[in-house]
């Protein structure tokens, strides 16, 4: 068991013929992910990394019976790719693309909320269920299977945590990178709920960062609903207020969303908060 993806997940790669799409299709296939098709408009009939390419998600779906897609198309076309996947009825859509305009995501998220599909991302590293499936760009060899669920707004910071766990012999049920953009498809609470219900998950690691109030909301949820222990780390204690720290959308808005606020909220919810990522394995014991 795991959340969102497992060995039966059948994945389409949207934007498979691009540089990133092709590279990560290879990586995902190497890892054992069931990549059943790719989509690039105008390139239907070609092959990429041994995978058949289709013009549209609709035709790819008919031919392959996919139930998920992962999006590597450039930002100007990413919202369109999301709509295509959602309209085709895919259950899970993982958008790796970074740099999507906020307005596109406001509109897309409103649209998705009326459907039964789940979007992970955008601007996220995707998901990894060790030894079963990876959908996205998380390096597969940094994780081993185990009982810890991981949810994170960050990319490489997540890899650090997963890698530190592996170095201590601790494994992961599923690792979900929900992405650092202000508007995304799946939030901490969605994942916490899923981990709480997942028999394969015993403990959860939540990796946050400054900006917004997602960690505070997660803390409230944990206090009210989680029986499984949660360990956390929040990045950005030294970030100056009022400046955007990169594309991560880590903005401190009017004094809210500081690392201190978040740590305080999480600790008040009974969460052990690490001072740095490599402390997390110890706190999980």
């Amino acid at each position, binding site marked *: 068991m795991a959340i969102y993806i497992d060995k039966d997940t059948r994945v389409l790669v949207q934007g498979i013929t691009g540089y990133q799409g092709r590279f990560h299709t290879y990586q995902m296939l190497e890892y054992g992910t069931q990549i059943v098709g790719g989509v690039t408009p105008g390139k239907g009939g070609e092959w990429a990394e041994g995978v058949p390419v289709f013009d549209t998600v609709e035709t790819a779906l008919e031919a392959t019976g996919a139930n998920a897609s992962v999006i590597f198309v450039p930002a100007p076309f990413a919202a369109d790719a999301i709509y295509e996947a959602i309209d085709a009825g895919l259950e899970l859509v993982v958008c790796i693309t970074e740099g999507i305009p906020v307005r*596109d995501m406001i509109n897309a998220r409103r649209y998705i909320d009326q459907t039964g599909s789940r979007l992970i991302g955008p601007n996220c590293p995707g998901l990894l269920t060790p030894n079963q499936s990876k959908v996205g760009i998380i390096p597969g060899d940094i994780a081993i299977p185990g009982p810890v669920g991981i949810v994170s707004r960050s990319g*490489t910071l997540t890899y650090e945590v997963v890698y530190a766990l592996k170095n201590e012999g601790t494994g992961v049920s599923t690792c979900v990178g929900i992405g650092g953009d202000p508007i995304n498809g799946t939030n901490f609470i969605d994942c916490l709920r899923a981990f709480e219900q997942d028999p394969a998950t015993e403990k959860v690691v939540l990796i946050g960062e400054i900006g917004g109030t997602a960690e505070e909301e997660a803390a409230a949820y944990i206090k009210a609903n989680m029986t499984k222990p949660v360990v956390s780390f929040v990045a950005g204690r030294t970030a100056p207020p009022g400046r955007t720290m990169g594309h991560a959308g880590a903005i401190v808005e009017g004094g809210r969303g500081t690392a201190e606020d978040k740590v305080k909220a999480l600790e008040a919810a009974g969460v052990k908060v690490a001072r*740095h990522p490599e402390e997390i394995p110890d706190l999980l014991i």
Partner: protein
Amino acid sequence: MNLHEYQSKLRFGDFGIPIPRGKVAETPEQAYDAARELGGKVVVKAQVLTGGRGKAGGVRLAGTPDEARAHAQTILGMDIHGHTVHKVLIDPAADIQSEIYFGVTNDRGARLPVIICSSEGGIAIEEVAATMPDKVIRVRVKPEIGLRGYQVANIASNIGLPREHWKQFGQIAGALYKCYVESDATLAEINPLAVTPGGLLAVDGKMSIDDNALFRHPDLAALRDASADPPAEIEARAAELSYIKLDGAIGCMVNGAGLAMTTMDMTKLFGGAPANFLDIGGGASADKVAAALRIILSDPNVKAVLCNIFGGITRCDDVARGILAALEEVRMEQPMVVRLVGTNEDEGRQIIDESGLPNVIGATTLADAAKKAVEAAGREA
């Protein structure tokens, strides 16, 4: 990307919002000519992309063209919070009866655009929110149906706007929302929206554009004024790097914003301080890494460099090659702690090792790397 006051107001004007018929001047003589042409009292306003210019003396009233020239002389070249004034806006002085704040931004929690309005305009809205929270009206807009007339009527009613201005207020509100949406703005504000004997007037304005959406607004992208930006930030933007200068001694080069912040946090945790935030992004090429290192080393405060790369899309060997390439151009006196983990880490380490660079210190864990960087910076200081 932020627009200057004059740029914001011209754009508001394109959407039908009444703005003062002002002129931009880059020299005192141009300011004189502008004031003479406008006639009457004028306001000379520094055009800088920072707040608090009024308190800093960057906004002055002039009764005559000569006075306008004199004020322009004072203001042009002035440094306001680190920004040099290169342009002034000469606006006719408005006969202001009262001042409204009217802005549009995104409410991230609700994931919707939100109108923010207050009868207490003319001062920073954060101040109003802090001191008179009741005076700040927030109305969310559902993008599929846009800002509705009834919402504007609600706002007008709430701020106690006299009824004779409701119609014009409605037009301005609709126009500002449209301007916000069609510009892919993250902020569009009129402050103050002045009530004058001739009706409402957008006396001051500000816009921020979503950088990620500039690809569909070449006209707005062309308005970027980098003249006040530090050269390092300009170079970073050109290389598509996220760079923010800070005050510490440890130059950080990291891939990923979250990991970059964590690396900064850890220098602090172990007794140091970061000189910058720098995210080289995913899948960074050797060129990009070289640009990053040049930018870091251009900061004279930097006593040590901490390069922390967790390879995913980014390959450690590319990073290693980028470091070597940069060091062929730039002389590095400072020690550099290098930690390469993940995709092609062995190849990356090998490249660094074989280069025989004298100042390079290897590190295993993130904590190890941070400690070593703090120590190295301490030795140099």
